[in-house]
């Protein structure tokens, strides 16, 4: 069984852990700050999806950022109520993705806390256009972990992509075996 690695990155307090916890049916209000990195695994259709939840705090980020290496899917999360978290996706996190995972890693950008949104869509669109020039952004979603808005959609998309990647990897392996 293949293990597919999915990573959640973004500034501290944007709601990465809350999104995962909301999907798992836990109370998101009591989510504490992540120390270093947390780890979750989900079994879907005979394959395992391993989700790495990264601490957003700067001190931890610099120490653990290398762990995004080998990720099949990268979820970049920002907070729709704090503009600098969107800016930091471009200023900091984007550069790490390019440097460690390359241009072709599949990326989903998530604007969380849509229930208290402050950033206007034009700015988000413009930022996404900038990001698309450098990384492979497949989808942008607005979510609210607190109100459980689009959380299932996010994880359904994650499982769809990982399933697709799993199929490609298996075919590739079969071809290698036969040649």
């Amino acid at each position, binding site marked *: 069984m293949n*293990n597919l690695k999915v990573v959640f990155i973004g*500034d*501290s*307090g944007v709601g990465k*852990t*809350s999104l995962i916890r909301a999907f*798992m049916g836990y109370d*998101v*209000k*009591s*989510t*504490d*700050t992540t*120390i*270093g*990195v*947390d*780890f*979750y*695994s*989900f*079994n879907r259709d005979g394959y395992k999806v*391993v989700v790495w939840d990264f601490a*957003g*705090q*700067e*001190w*931890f980020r610099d*120490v*653990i950022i*290398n*762990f995004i*290496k*080998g990720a099949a899917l990268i979820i970049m999360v920002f*907070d729709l109520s*704090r*503009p*600098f978290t*969107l*800016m930091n996706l*471009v*200023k900091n996190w984007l550069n790490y993705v390019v440097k460690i995972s390359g241009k072709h890693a599949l990326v989903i950008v998530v604007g969380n806390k849509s229930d208290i949104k*402050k*950033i*206007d869509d*034009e*700015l988000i669109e*413009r*930022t996404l256009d900038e990001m698309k020039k450098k990384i492979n952004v497949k989808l942008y979603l607005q979510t609210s972990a*607190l109100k459980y808005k689009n959380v299932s959609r996010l994880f359904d998309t994650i499982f769809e992509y990982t399933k697709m990647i799993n199929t490609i990897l298996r075919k590739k392996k079969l071809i290698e075996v036969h040649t």
Partner: protein
Amino acid sequence: MVTIKFMCPLCKKIFKGEVPKVSLGEIGSAGFVHNNHVVIVDYDYHGVIRSINAINMCNVIDGDFISCPYCNEPIRIPNDIEGYTELAYVHKDHVAIVYLFDRKHYAIDVVNIVSEQETATQKENPIDSIINKVGLNLASNLLIRRIIFGKSDIDAPKEVLRLINKIVKELDISKNVDLGIDISIAERISYTFFEKFLDKIRKLSKDIALYKLGNLVKLIRKYILLLDHFHREGMNELAEEFINQITNEDLRTFVHQIYSQLSAGEKMQKETQLNFMVNMN
């Protein structure tokens, strides 16, 4: 109100201030005005700092006008924004921060200003005192046992024990309970990483040294817990991958040695007490 303590990224000094408590799940922001910059601190319900950003104050007199969304006072965006990504405008009791995505695209946030006090930095650094008393090697051994493994029954001179307990208290690692690691592991691992780290922070001010030590302790304890989980679940490949991706070579060796000892048979307890957030579906 809740007290937050932070290090200004520009002044490199530790400050503390009283900020309004936010609800569970919310993130609050507070602005601290320094000489030529403003420090924006984001914190959570527990008063845990989520982010710290120092932003230069803007005093330009030319450029386009926009209004502060809180007090309507005019804000000028400089004509030449080269080199700026964000600018702070101090208005009486609040600060308006303009995030410049480019010349035409920006977002404005408003944060209340909070008064602060600089914490005294002349205090004795207990890490340096311990090293002076027992040497770097034994200091590393004792601190690894007490603050990383969480052993409370360590054997050390009375004065050294007093200093170590002082560190534990000040680090405020609320979940610093015994990891259940066989203490003999401490005799079989290399302290190079920890020795280098302690040597680096021993001459820093007490607050900064303990801030750095606290972060490192939290991180190493988390690594150990993750690796123990991988080990118990038979996820050895994942554990190896995890260890290999630790960039600092000495830290990697340190963590790997502990993992090897775990794999050799030692088991850890008290995971539930630690409220360790690994969930298997």
